[in-house]
């Protein structure tokens, strides 16, 4: 029963956000700030995640296939396709659920419990348009960009790890990556990152916007936003794979 109530409140907030999205002048400034915070500020962690994911995948694939009589280019194919289809979007999503989701829920939760949202409403602002719309828009706009960054650095990291460890020469790695490259996989990864961006920011906005109590309430809403963001990413990953592959 409670879950249905929560779903109803979440849907209602999204509906309000959709209706408020026409009030561009209200959220224009905030949208720019959020694009920077969600996108630009996340680039370093995404590069790090990409490089290490690609590197570890290459080393582990080389280890697992060391006694198999298959061409080394296969490792390049495995790493690049895994990154494009799954890892760049999902691992980035999980990391960003912590970084972006926690920040958004904490910001809005603090604003709620310190009456800043009430103050906005009292001044005649549409608080959903002012606070929720720019954050969700920044999520759906910047996560696909971060997916591209994660993919480039993931494949680059895999290539570098193969070269420096002496397990896969770059020419073989790239040959395998090119041979098994399907543009649809990029479209699929791109779609996933778009959906994950929406899930993480909208869930975090919902949890923060309706936070109750003091510091404890904000902490609870932040934890729930992060945990639920991660769970919904995994569920959405499964659903999208079942629908689109």
């Amino acid at each position, binding site marked *: 029963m409670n879950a249905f109530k929560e779903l109803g409140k979440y849907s209602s907030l999204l509906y309000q956000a959709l209706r408020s999205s026409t009030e561009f002048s*209200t959220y224009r400034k905030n949208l720019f700030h959020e694009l920077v915070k969600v996108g630009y500020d996340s680039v370093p962690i995404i590069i790090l995640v990409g490089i290490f994911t690609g590197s570890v995948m290459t080393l582990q694939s080389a280890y697992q296939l060391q006694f198999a009589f298959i061409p080394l280019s296969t490792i390049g194919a495995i790493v690049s396709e895994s990154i494009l289809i799954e890892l760049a979007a999902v691992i980035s999503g999980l990391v960003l659920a912590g970084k972006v989701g926690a920040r958004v829920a904490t910001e809005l939760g603090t604003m709620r419990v*310190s*009456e*800043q949202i*009430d103050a906005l409403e*009292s*001044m*005649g*602002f549409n608080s959903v348009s002012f606070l929720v719309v720019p954050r969700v828009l920044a999520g759906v706009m910047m996560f696909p960009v971060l997916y591209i960054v994660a993919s480039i650095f993931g494949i680059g990291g895999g290539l570098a790890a193969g070269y420096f460890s002496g397990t896969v020469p770059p020419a073989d790695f790239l040959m395998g990556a090119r041979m098994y490259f399907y543009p649809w996989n990029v479209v699929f990864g791109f779609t996933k990152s778009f959906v994950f961006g929406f899930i993480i920011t909208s869930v975090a906005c919902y949890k923060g916007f309706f936070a109750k109590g003091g510091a404890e309430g904000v902490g609870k809403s932040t934890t729930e936003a992060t945990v639920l963001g991660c769970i919904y990413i995994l569920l959405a990953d499964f659903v999208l794979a079942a629908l689109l592959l």
Partner: protein
Amino acid sequence: MIEIRNLTKSFGDNLVWEDVTFRIEDGETTAIIGRSGCGKSVLLKHINALMTPDSGEVLIDGKNIFELDYVGQRKLRQRFGVLFQGSALFDSINTFENIAFPLRYFTDLSEHDIHDKVMAALRHVNLESAAEKGTSELSGGMRKRVGLARAIILEPQYIMYDEPTSGLDPQTADEINELIVVMAEQFDITSIVITHDMHSVLEVADKVAFLDQQKLSWYGTIDQMRQSNQKNLIDFISASEYQIKSKSSI
């Protein structure tokens, strides 16, 4: 004029108050008093349509505000300034920007005019020197004054104070009380003050509405309040007077 008619509100099975009826005349300062948790702040949020009642009406200049659409209610709220209990300053921007905030979104004023208006508002609350300070650098009393400067910046017709002196030392509380009186007189603002601080009530209010036992238990002028024989009102005032005397004897 604000007319509150037969207002009833409950949260689930918990009745907050019922059948609340009173009138706030233009230019008057009305204090809404009562014990903690009696629903004073909830009533305040009904007066500018931040909350909707289970039944009843709030009429402003003869129009029921709950019949207005969302845009109409937002426009109505711009006629109110609100000073929140914790001041509700935006902590991501400094004092100047907090006060300039409504001007930037709701007016077409130039930067120069915004600067002049903000500095004038800060002068009114004796806080010109704090313009560039971050909100975390402000004391409790300064935060209240900045909140007050922000509340008056759009030159509202009504101003609502939610526990304006709570958490302040007696001297700072007196300064805030003085400001409430000055604002009402200087700008001809109709004021509504939520408080359980009787000292503040006696300093600023023309009329008093006493919420108790889930209803409007008493309503009248300050003089009528002093002469009232109603037991629960006398008990409430006596408890506060004891506190005032205790403070002054220290």
